[in-house]
Protein backbone atom coordinates (compact mmCIF):
# COMPACT_ATOMS: atom_id res chain seq x y z
CA UNK A 1 0.00 0.00 0.00
CA UNK A 2 1.27 3.49 -0.86
CA UNK A 3 3.53 4.97 1.76
CA UNK A 4 1.38 8.08 1.95
CA UNK A 5 -1.68 5.98 2.88
CA UNK A 6 0.20 4.48 5.79
CA UNK A 7 1.49 7.85 6.92
CA UNK A 8 -1.90 9.50 6.70
CA UNK A 9 -3.58 6.56 8.43
CA UNK A 10 -1.03 6.65 11.25
CA UNK A 11 -1.47 10.40 11.57
CA UNK A 12 -5.25 9.99 11.92
CA UNK A 13 -4.89 7.24 14.49
CA UNK A 14 -2.31 9.21 16.46
CA UNK A 15 -4.82 12.04 16.71
CA UNK A 16 -7.31 9.66 18.37
CA UNK A 17 -6.57 9.48 22.07
CA UNK A 18 -8.27 9.95 25.42
CA UNK A 19 -7.90 13.27 27.20
CA UNK A 20 -5.74 13.14 30.31
CA UNK A 21 -8.70 13.89 32.60
CA UNK A 22 -10.52 10.89 31.14
CA UNK A 23 -7.48 8.71 31.81
CA UNK A 24 -7.32 10.05 35.37
CA UNK A 25 -10.98 9.18 35.82
CA UNK A 26 -10.41 5.64 34.54
CA UNK A 27 -7.40 5.29 36.82
CA UNK A 28 -9.43 6.31 39.89
CA UNK A 29 -12.36 4.07 38.97
CA UNK A 30 -10.09 1.07 38.58
CA UNK A 31 -8.47 1.60 41.96
CA UNK A 32 -11.85 2.19 43.58
CA UNK A 33 -13.17 -1.05 42.09
CA UNK A 34 -10.16 -2.93 43.41
CA UNK A 35 -10.49 -1.38 46.86
CA UNK A 36 -14.27 -1.88 47.14
CA UNK A 37 -13.95 -5.45 46.05
CA UNK A 38 -11.23 -6.17 48.60
CA UNK A 39 -13.13 -4.45 51.44
CA UNK A 40 -16.43 -6.19 50.80
CA UNK A 41 -14.88 -9.44 49.59
CA UNK A 42 -17.25 -9.20 46.68
CA UNK A 43 -16.76 -9.75 42.98
CA UNK A 44 -15.52 -6.83 40.96
CA UNK A 45 -18.38 -4.56 40.00
CA UNK A 46 -18.98 -3.93 36.35
CA UNK A 47 -19.37 -0.24 35.71
CA UNK A 48 -21.08 0.95 32.62
CA UNK A 49 -22.23 4.13 31.05
CA UNK A 50 -25.33 4.57 29.00
CA UNK A 51 -26.99 7.51 27.48
CA UNK A 52 -29.92 9.18 29.07
CA UNK A 53 -31.98 8.08 26.13
CA UNK A 54 -31.10 4.44 26.74
CA UNK A 55 -31.62 4.84 30.48
CA UNK A 56 -35.19 5.96 29.89
CA UNK A 57 -36.08 2.59 28.47
CA UNK A 58 -33.53 0.51 30.35
CA UNK A 59 -34.42 -1.33 33.54
CA UNK A 60 -33.57 1.00 36.43
CA UNK A 61 -35.00 0.11 39.71
CA UNK A 62 -36.12 1.20 43.10
CA UNK A 63 -35.19 4.46 44.62
CA UNK A 64 -33.89 4.41 48.13
CA UNK A 65 -33.09 8.06 48.08
CA UNK A 66 -32.11 10.74 45.65
CA UNK A 67 -29.49 13.30 46.45
CA UNK A 68 -30.63 16.43 44.67
CA UNK A 69 -28.20 18.59 42.76
CA UNK A 70 -30.67 21.13 41.56
CA UNK A 71 -28.38 23.29 39.50
CA UNK A 72 -27.23 20.56 37.12
CA UNK A 73 -29.15 18.70 34.48
CA UNK A 74 -28.56 15.05 33.91
CA UNK A 75 -27.06 14.34 30.51
CA UNK A 76 -26.16 10.70 31.00
CA UNK A 77 -26.04 7.98 33.62
CA UNK A 78 -23.39 5.65 34.96
CA UNK A 79 -24.36 2.58 36.91
CA UNK A 80 -22.75 -0.43 38.50
CA UNK A 81 -24.09 -3.72 39.69
CA UNK A 82 -22.88 -7.18 40.59
CA UNK A 83 -23.05 -9.87 37.96
CA UNK A 84 -24.54 -12.39 40.42
CA UNK A 85 -27.67 -11.97 42.60
CA UNK A 86 -27.13 -9.77 45.64
CA UNK A 87 -30.53 -10.51 47.19
CA UNK A 88 -31.66 -14.09 47.45
CA UNK A 89 -35.21 -13.41 48.78
CA UNK A 90 -37.81 -10.66 48.37
CA UNK A 91 -37.82 -10.11 52.14
CA UNK A 92 -34.11 -9.25 52.00
CA UNK A 93 -34.96 -6.51 49.51
CA UNK A 94 -38.03 -5.27 51.40
CA UNK A 95 -36.15 -3.99 54.42
CA UNK A 96 -35.88 -0.31 53.60
CA UNK A 97 -38.18 2.52 52.60
CA UNK A 98 -38.59 1.07 49.13
CA UNK A 99 -41.89 -0.21 47.86
CA UNK A 100 -42.05 -3.94 48.52
CA UNK A 101 -41.58 -6.54 45.84
CA UNK A 102 -43.59 -9.75 45.94
CA UNK A 103 -42.02 -13.09 46.77
CA UNK A 104 -44.16 -14.60 44.02
CA UNK A 105 -46.95 -13.77 41.62
CA UNK A 106 -50.20 -15.74 41.34
CA UNK A 107 -49.15 -17.04 37.93
CA UNK A 108 -46.22 -19.00 39.39
CA UNK A 109 -43.40 -16.57 38.69
CA UNK A 110 -41.31 -16.53 41.85
CA UNK A 111 -38.49 -14.37 43.08
CA UNK A 112 -35.18 -15.63 41.68
CA UNK A 113 -32.86 -12.85 42.75
CA UNK A 114 -32.27 -9.13 42.95
CA UNK A 115 -29.48 -6.62 42.75
CA UNK A 116 -28.60 -3.10 43.80
CA UNK A 117 -27.85 -0.85 40.87
CA UNK A 118 -25.89 2.23 41.87
CA UNK A 119 -26.83 4.99 39.48
CA UNK A 120 -25.27 8.40 39.06
CA UNK A 121 -26.64 11.05 36.79
CA UNK A 122 -23.91 13.13 35.22
CA UNK A 123 -24.11 16.54 33.62
CA UNK A 124 -22.37 17.54 30.41
CA UNK A 125 -19.07 18.11 32.17
CA UNK A 126 -19.15 14.71 33.84
CA UNK A 127 -19.95 16.09 37.29
CA UNK A 128 -22.47 14.19 39.42
CA UNK A 129 -25.92 15.70 39.08
CA UNK A 130 -27.88 13.00 40.90
CA UNK A 131 -27.17 9.81 42.75
CA UNK A 132 -29.40 6.96 43.87
CA UNK A 133 -29.63 3.24 44.33
CA UNK A 134 -32.03 1.23 42.24
CA UNK A 135 -32.85 -2.46 42.39
CA UNK A 136 -33.43 -5.05 39.70
CA UNK A 137 -35.51 -8.17 40.39
CA UNK A 138 -35.77 -11.35 38.34
CA UNK A 139 -38.73 -13.71 38.55
CA UNK A 140 -38.70 -17.21 37.11
CA UNK A 141 -41.31 -19.93 36.66
CA UNK A 142 -41.03 -23.74 36.55
CA UNK A 143 -40.31 -23.56 32.82
CA UNK A 144 -37.35 -21.31 33.61
CA UNK A 145 -38.91 -18.36 31.84
CA UNK A 146 -37.69 -15.04 33.22
CA UNK A 147 -39.46 -11.76 33.80
CA UNK A 148 -37.55 -8.78 35.13
CA UNK A 149 -39.18 -6.19 37.37
CA UNK A 150 -37.62 -2.78 37.58
CA UNK A 151 -38.84 0.32 39.34
CA UNK A 152 -37.45 3.83 39.01
CA UNK A 153 -38.35 7.35 39.95
CA UNK A 154 -37.48 8.78 36.54
CA UNK A 155 -36.53 12.40 36.97
CA UNK A 156 -37.64 13.70 33.64
CA UNK A 157 -38.11 10.87 31.23
CA UNK A 158 -41.23 10.08 29.31
CA UNK A 159 -42.09 7.29 26.90
CA UNK A 160 -43.22 9.05 23.77
CA UNK A 161 -43.96 6.06 21.57
CA UNK A 162 -47.49 4.85 20.95
CA UNK A 163 -48.10 1.75 23.08
CA UNK A 164 -48.81 -1.59 21.44
CA UNK A 165 -51.78 -1.83 23.85
CA UNK A 166 -53.04 0.14 26.83
CA UNK A 167 -55.31 -0.98 29.68
CA UNK A 168 -56.64 0.79 32.71
CA UNK A 169 -56.25 -1.21 35.91
CA UNK A 170 -57.66 0.19 39.16
CA UNK A 171 -57.46 3.67 37.65
CA UNK A 172 -53.85 3.31 36.52
CA UNK A 173 -52.87 3.42 32.86
CA UNK A 174 -50.75 0.40 32.04
CA UNK A 175 -49.06 0.28 28.67
CA UNK A 176 -47.81 -2.81 26.88
CA UNK A 177 -45.01 -2.61 24.33
CA UNK A 178 -43.91 -5.42 22.08
CA UNK A 179 -40.57 -4.57 20.54
CA UNK A 180 -38.94 -6.49 17.74
CA UNK A 181 -35.19 -6.60 17.32
CA UNK A 182 -33.64 -7.78 14.07
CA UNK A 183 -30.13 -8.78 15.11
CA UNK A 184 -27.65 -9.01 12.26
CA UNK A 185 -24.07 -10.30 12.18
CA UNK A 186 -22.41 -7.44 10.38
CA UNK A 187 -23.27 -3.77 10.42
CA UNK A 188 -21.73 -3.45 7.00
CA UNK A 189 -24.42 -5.51 5.34
CA UNK A 190 -26.78 -3.26 3.45
CA UNK A 191 -30.30 -3.27 4.88
CA UNK A 192 -33.00 -4.17 2.38
CA UNK A 193 -35.63 -1.62 1.41
CA UNK A 194 -38.35 -3.23 3.53
CA UNK A 195 -36.18 -3.18 6.63
CA UNK A 196 -35.20 0.43 6.08
CA UNK A 197 -38.83 1.34 5.60
CA UNK A 198 -39.84 -0.39 8.81
CA UNK A 199 -37.09 1.33 10.74
CA UNK A 200 -38.47 4.67 9.57
CA UNK A 201 -42.10 3.97 10.29
CA UNK A 202 -42.31 1.39 13.07
CA UNK A 203 -41.12 2.66 16.43
CA UNK A 204 -41.35 -0.83 17.89
CA UNK A 205 -38.81 -2.21 15.42
CA UNK A 206 -35.06 -1.99 15.90
CA UNK A 207 -31.97 -3.32 14.14
CA UNK A 208 -28.91 -4.29 16.11
CA UNK A 209 -25.71 -6.17 15.39
CA UNK A 210 -23.51 -8.80 16.90
CA UNK A 211 -25.17 -12.18 16.35
CA UNK A 212 -23.58 -15.09 14.55
CA UNK A 213 -26.58 -15.35 12.21
CA UNK A 214 -29.48 -13.03 11.50
CA UNK A 215 -32.17 -13.51 14.14
CA UNK A 216 -35.24 -11.80 15.47
CA UNK A 217 -35.75 -11.26 19.20
CA UNK A 218 -38.96 -9.97 20.74
CA UNK A 219 -39.19 -8.13 24.04
CA UNK A 220 -42.58 -7.79 25.73
CA UNK A 221 -43.00 -5.31 28.54
CA UNK A 222 -45.66 -3.54 30.58
CA UNK A 223 -45.12 -0.31 32.47
CA UNK A 224 -47.09 2.04 34.68
CA UNK A 225 -46.48 4.82 37.18
CA UNK A 226 -47.69 4.72 40.75
CA UNK A 227 -46.80 7.11 43.57
CA UNK A 228 -43.99 8.63 41.53
CA UNK A 229 -42.40 5.29 40.70
CA UNK A 230 -42.25 3.86 37.19
CA UNK A 231 -42.77 0.08 37.25
CA UNK A 232 -41.54 -1.95 34.29
CA UNK A 233 -42.01 -5.70 33.79
CA UNK A 234 -40.29 -7.10 30.72
CA UNK A 235 -39.18 -10.36 29.17
CA UNK A 236 -37.52 -11.83 26.10
CA UNK A 237 -39.40 -15.12 26.61
CA UNK A 238 -42.65 -16.05 24.90
CA UNK A 239 -44.98 -14.57 27.51
CA UNK A 240 -48.24 -12.90 26.58
CA UNK A 241 -49.40 -9.40 27.34
CA UNK A 242 -52.23 -10.90 29.46
CA UNK A 243 -49.69 -12.50 31.78
CA UNK A 244 -47.74 -9.26 32.10
CA UNK A 245 -50.89 -7.18 32.59
CA UNK A 246 -51.92 -9.64 35.32
CA UNK A 247 -48.63 -9.15 37.11
CA UNK A 248 -48.96 -5.39 36.79
CA UNK A 249 -52.42 -5.65 38.37
CA UNK A 250 -50.95 -7.52 41.35
CA UNK A 251 -48.34 -4.83 41.80
CA UNK A 252 -50.95 -2.09 41.60
CA UNK A 253 -53.12 -3.79 44.21
Amino acid at each position, binding site marked *: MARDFQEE*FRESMNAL*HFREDVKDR*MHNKLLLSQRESAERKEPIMKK*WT*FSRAAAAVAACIMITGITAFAASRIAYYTASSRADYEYKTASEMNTTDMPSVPEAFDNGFAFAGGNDVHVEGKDE*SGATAGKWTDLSVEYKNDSDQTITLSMTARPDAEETRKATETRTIEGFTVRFDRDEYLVLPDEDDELDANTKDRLEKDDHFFVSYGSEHAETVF*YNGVSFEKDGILYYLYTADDISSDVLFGMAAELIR
Partner: protein
Amino acid sequence: MPYMDSKNADRLIQTYADMILRISYMYLKQTYDAEDICQDVFLKLLSGNYHFDSPEHEKSWIIRTTVNACKDHLRTSFWKRAAEWDSVPEIPVTPEPKSELMDLVMELPRNYRISIYLHYYEGYQVKEIAAMFGKTENAVSTYLRRGRNKLRKMMEP
Protein backbone atom coordinates in the same frame (compact mmCIF):
# COMPACT_ATOMS: atom_id res chain seq x y z
CA MET B 1 -0.01 -7.86 45.87
CA PRO B 2 -3.08 -6.89 43.86
CA TYR B 3 -2.61 -6.77 40.09
CA MET B 4 -4.27 -3.40 40.02
CA ASP B 5 -2.17 -1.23 42.31
CA SER B 6 -1.77 2.44 41.47
CA LYS B 7 1.47 1.95 39.56
CA ASN B 8 0.11 -0.93 37.50
CA ALA B 9 -3.20 0.85 36.83
CA ASP B 10 -1.25 3.82 35.57
CA ARG B 11 0.99 1.64 33.39
CA LEU B 12 -1.97 -0.19 31.84
CA ILE B 13 -3.88 3.01 31.11
CA GLN B 14 -0.89 4.86 29.67
CA THR B 15 0.15 1.84 27.58
CA TYR B 16 -3.20 0.55 26.34
CA ALA B 17 -6.11 2.98 26.83
CA ASP B 18 -5.55 4.82 23.55
CA MET B 19 -5.09 1.53 21.70
CA ILE B 20 -8.39 0.29 23.13
CA LEU B 21 -10.01 3.55 22.05
CA ARG B 22 -8.70 3.14 18.50
CA ILE B 23 -9.79 -0.48 18.22
CA SER B 24 -13.23 0.44 19.62
CA TYR B 25 -13.52 3.22 17.06
CA MET B 26 -12.51 0.92 14.22
CA TYR B 27 -15.00 -1.71 15.39
CA LEU B 28 -17.97 0.38 16.50
CA LYS B 29 -17.43 3.42 14.25
CA GLN B 30 -17.87 5.74 17.20
CA THR B 31 -15.91 6.76 20.27
CA TYR B 32 -18.86 7.13 22.61
CA ASP B 33 -18.57 3.67 24.15
CA ALA B 34 -14.78 3.58 24.22
CA GLU B 35 -14.43 4.51 27.90
CA ASP B 36 -16.84 1.72 28.83
CA ILE B 37 -14.97 -0.73 26.64
CA CYS B 38 -11.72 0.32 28.27
CA GLN B 39 -13.15 -0.20 31.72
CA ASP B 40 -14.59 -3.59 30.70
CA VAL B 41 -11.18 -4.75 29.51
CA PHE B 42 -9.24 -3.54 32.53
CA LEU B 43 -11.87 -4.86 34.97
CA LYS B 44 -11.66 -8.25 33.27
CA LEU B 45 -7.92 -8.17 33.71
CA LEU B 46 -8.39 -7.22 37.33
CA SER B 47 -10.91 -9.94 38.13
CA GLY B 48 -9.10 -12.79 36.39
CA ASN B 49 -5.90 -14.48 37.44
CA TYR B 50 -3.89 -13.67 34.35
CA HIS B 51 -0.18 -14.15 33.95
CA PHE B 52 1.53 -12.99 30.81
CA ASP B 53 4.82 -14.40 29.53
CA SER B 54 5.79 -11.12 27.90
CA PRO B 55 4.56 -7.61 27.11
CA GLU B 56 3.64 -8.89 23.63
CA HIS B 57 1.48 -11.59 25.18
CA GLU B 58 -0.23 -9.03 27.39
CA LYS B 59 -0.85 -6.69 24.44
CA SER B 60 -2.27 -9.51 22.34
CA TRP B 61 -4.67 -10.44 25.16
CA ILE B 62 -5.77 -6.81 25.49
CA ILE B 63 -6.47 -6.58 21.73
CA ARG B 64 -8.52 -9.79 21.66
CA THR B 65 -10.44 -8.82 24.79
CA THR B 66 -11.17 -5.38 23.37
CA VAL B 67 -12.65 -6.86 20.20
CA ASN B 68 -14.76 -9.25 22.30
CA ALA B 69 -15.92 -6.36 24.48
CA CYS B 70 -16.94 -4.47 21.32
CA LYS B 71 -18.94 -7.50 20.16
CA ASP B 72 -20.67 -7.66 23.56
CA HIS B 73 -21.49 -3.99 23.30
CA LEU B 74 -23.24 -4.54 20.00
CA ARG B 75 -25.21 -7.46 21.43
CA THR B 76 -26.56 -5.40 24.29
CA SER B 77 -28.18 -2.89 21.97
CA PHE B 78 -31.48 -3.46 23.82
CA TRP B 79 -30.15 -1.04 26.37
CA LYS B 80 -29.18 1.47 23.75
CA ARG B 81 -32.60 2.20 22.23
CA ALA B 82 -33.05 5.89 21.74
CA ALA B 83 -36.03 7.56 23.35
CA GLU B 84 -37.13 10.94 22.11
CA TRP B 85 -36.43 13.95 24.24
CA ASP B 86 -37.47 17.49 23.85
CA SER B 87 -33.88 18.54 24.04
CA VAL B 88 -30.88 16.37 24.74
CA PRO B 89 -27.63 18.05 25.64
CA GLU B 90 -24.57 16.72 23.87
CA ILE B 91 -22.74 14.03 25.81
CA PRO B 92 -19.00 14.76 25.84
CA VAL B 93 -17.14 12.16 23.78
CA THR B 94 -13.61 11.76 22.52
CA PRO B 95 -13.49 13.50 19.13
CA GLU B 96 -13.29 11.14 16.16
CA PRO B 97 -10.48 11.57 13.63
CA LYS B 98 -11.60 13.69 10.73
CA SER B 99 -10.02 13.07 7.35
CA GLU B 100 -11.12 12.02 3.91
CA LEU B 101 -8.99 8.89 4.20
CA MET B 102 -10.58 7.89 7.51
CA ASP B 103 -14.04 8.44 6.04
CA LEU B 104 -13.13 5.95 3.30
CA VAL B 105 -11.58 3.44 5.70
CA MET B 106 -14.70 3.56 7.87
CA GLU B 107 -16.78 2.56 4.85
CA LEU B 108 -14.95 -0.75 4.67
CA PRO B 109 -16.39 -3.88 6.32
CA ARG B 110 -15.47 -4.36 9.95
CA ASN B 111 -13.03 -7.23 9.44
CA TYR B 112 -11.14 -5.21 6.84
CA ARG B 113 -10.95 -2.17 9.13
CA ILE B 114 -9.62 -4.13 12.09
CA SER B 115 -7.06 -5.97 9.95
CA ILE B 116 -5.90 -2.70 8.36
CA TYR B 117 -5.55 -1.12 11.80
CA LEU B 118 -3.58 -4.01 13.27
CA HIS B 119 -1.33 -4.33 10.21
CA TYR B 120 -0.68 -0.72 9.23
CA TYR B 121 -0.83 0.92 12.62
CA GLU B 122 0.14 -1.68 15.21
CA GLY B 123 2.58 -3.39 12.81
CA TYR B 124 1.27 -6.96 13.17
CA GLN B 125 2.00 -9.43 10.39
CA VAL B 126 -0.73 -11.50 8.74
CA LYS B 127 0.36 -14.59 10.67
CA GLU B 128 0.13 -12.76 13.99
CA ILE B 129 -3.31 -11.28 13.28
CA ALA B 130 -4.58 -14.70 12.19
CA ALA B 131 -3.28 -16.33 15.38
CA MET B 132 -4.77 -13.60 17.55
CA PHE B 133 -8.30 -14.19 16.28
CA GLY B 134 -8.22 -17.83 15.33
CA LYS B 135 -8.55 -17.08 11.63
CA THR B 136 -6.58 -18.53 8.75
CA GLU B 137 -3.72 -16.52 7.30
CA ASN B 138 -5.57 -16.69 4.00
CA ALA B 139 -8.63 -15.00 5.52
CA VAL B 140 -6.57 -12.16 6.97
CA SER B 141 -4.63 -11.72 3.71
CA THR B 142 -7.96 -11.52 1.89
CA TYR B 143 -9.26 -8.85 4.28
CA LEU B 144 -6.14 -6.76 3.72
CA ARG B 145 -6.06 -7.27 -0.06
CA ARG B 146 -9.75 -6.52 -0.54
CA GLY B 147 -9.50 -3.56 1.82
CA ARG B 148 -6.61 -2.10 -0.18
CA ASN B 149 -8.42 -2.68 -3.49
CA LYS B 150 -11.61 -1.06 -2.24
CA LEU B 151 -9.70 1.93 -0.93
CA ARG B 152 -7.87 2.32 -4.26
CA LYS B 153 -11.18 2.29 -6.13
CA MET B 154 -12.75 4.77 -3.70
CA MET B 155 -9.76 7.11 -3.99
CA GLU B 156 -9.85 7.10 -7.81
CA PRO B 157 -10.96 10.43 -9.21
